């Protein structure tokens, strides 16, 4: 028990300075014109996580997702051949939302208004009294959206012909996501929150550990220690536009007795399921623009921050499980793991909103990121590059 423990060595200030050192303008964290530009430059051009493939395992399964950032409602189906398809959830007659249930299983989708009927490939199959129209049926398929999955995570791209495939977009992350527990998940626990805060301000909270000891004095105890009082990560990785961190954990964590019972069960099932010992188990992936995935075998979660307006967002957190609950101990271990993760996540919301209230007045022209907030800085860099390129593109376009 007295064997030497490795001493924590943080990422140095010099290393982190590679991503930049200048103060970051505050406007992009509350101004609506910047938000509007982000919607176009980032959210209409990037692959966006909208769910997990285990939500639609069988041919005929479908889900509906509201994507406020694009004012869009999306219908995602698995067609008769088992392939994923995605469409705007809008009837091509006069636009009526086709499906109102959040999920289900169906071969055809009939519009409630005049009963136009589409199949799971989005093709218009039937339209009453169609002879009265002045258009070809073949032109009236549902408007497609690009869809693909990687490591179980389901992504859409609002550009029906994306500049990059999902795998190219994810780059070196793609292979790693395939190895995570979330790639094998068949079900999940989920908790959600609405927040009066910009999506970047919200997301940033979950990619810096500087706040842990102040905001998570109790739940954060396991992730800090004498030689790493702030619980900073071991490493940061940059794979533009994505980023990663390798989480440090206290080699001698203080685990409470009842917690030990729950963790013991959780570990037993994680081992039984072959989830333990992966190289990615300490990796925390920040997939551009708004998705996190944690590779941990016992609490493998995803956290997506959906923008709603410049100062409003919604978070969706899911903890992934392999197989249904098959015995009492497994059910108990999952309930505990979800409860603990949620306790930690819930502690952040109020202080993020307080940050937004402080920024909204414009009193601060800039904000400052320290070396250990380098992932926040990197997100801003990635977003701002795209926003500036989009604005330049608009200006040249407008001058013609």
């Amino acid at each position, binding site marked *: 028990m007295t064997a030497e423990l490795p001493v924590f060595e943080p990422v140095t200030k010099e290393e982190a300075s590679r991503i930049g050192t200048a103060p970051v303008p505050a406007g992009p964290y509350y101004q609506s014109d910047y938000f509007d530009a982000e919607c176009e430059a980032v959210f209409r051009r990037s692959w966006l996580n909208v769910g997990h493939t285990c939500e639609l395992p069988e041919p005929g399964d479908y889900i509906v997702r509201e994507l406020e950032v694009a004012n869009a409602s999306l219908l995602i189906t698995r067609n008769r051949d088992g392939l994923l398809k995605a469409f705007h959830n809008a009837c091509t007659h006069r636009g009526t939302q086709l499906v109102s249930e959040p999920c289900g299983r169906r071969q055809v989708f009939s519009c409630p208004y005049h009963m136009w009927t589409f199949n799971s490939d989005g093709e218009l199959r039937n339209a009453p009294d169609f002879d009265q129209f002045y258009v070809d049926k073949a032109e009236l398929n549902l408007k497609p959206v690009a869809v693909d999955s990687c490591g179980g995570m389901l992504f859409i791209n609002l550009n029906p012909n994306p500049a990059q495939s999902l795998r190219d977009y994810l780059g070196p992350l793609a292979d790693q996501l395939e190895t995570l527990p979330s790639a094998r998940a068949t079900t999940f626990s989920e908790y959600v929150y609405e927040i009066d805060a910009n999506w970047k301000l919200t997301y940033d909270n979950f990619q810096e550990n500087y706040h842990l000891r102040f905001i998570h004095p109790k739940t954060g105890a396991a992730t800090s220690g004498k030689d790493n009082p702030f619980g900073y990560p071991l490493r940061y990785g940059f794979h533009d536009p994505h980023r990663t961190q390798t989480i440090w954990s206290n080699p001698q964590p203080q685990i409470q007795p009842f917690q030990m019972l729950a963790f013991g069960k959780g570990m037993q099932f994680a081992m039984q399921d072959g989830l333990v010992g992966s190289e990615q188990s300490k990796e925390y992936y920040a997939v551009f623009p708004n998705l996190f995935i944690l590779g941990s075998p016992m609490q493998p979660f995803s956290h997506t921050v959906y923008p709603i307006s410049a100062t409003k967002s919604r978070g969706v957190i899911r903890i992934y499980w392999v197989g249904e609950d098959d015995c009492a101990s497994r059910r108990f271990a999952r309930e505990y793991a979800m409860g603990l993760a949620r306790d930690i996540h819930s*502690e952040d919301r109020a202080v993020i909103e307080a940050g937004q209230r402080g920024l909204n007045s414009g009193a601060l022209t800039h904000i400052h990121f320290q070396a250990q907030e380098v992932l926040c800085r990197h997100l801003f860099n990635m977003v701002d590059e795209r926003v500036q390129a989009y604005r330049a593109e608009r200006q040249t376009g407008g001058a013609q």
Partner: protein
Amino acid sequence: MNAANRLPAAFAELEPFVDQWCLATSNERTTARRNSTPEEREAFFNAGKVIAADALQLLDQKPLDQLDDKEQCLMSLLLSLAHVSLAVEIQGGDEARHALASQHMPITRSPSNPR
């Protein structure tokens, strides 16, 4: 106290906690945690923590879908105990402050919820 035997005989000492803590969904359990008093949480946690391992061992002998009503009630108590333990064992004196945050994060899906 309620005289009904709603739990397997070996766990009868938990009968007084059934009304408050035998709940159907994860969100109901965390809501009950939030709406309870520190005394209620401590009494339940102290009674539950000593039998939890034995109770799980008993329940593990059957597939979950074959548990009878009493066993299901015991299962549900153990799941509530997981939530309550977070309040008593982890948050301690911070639970009142923590509860303010927790109400904004409803649990919308859980494998332990009824289908």
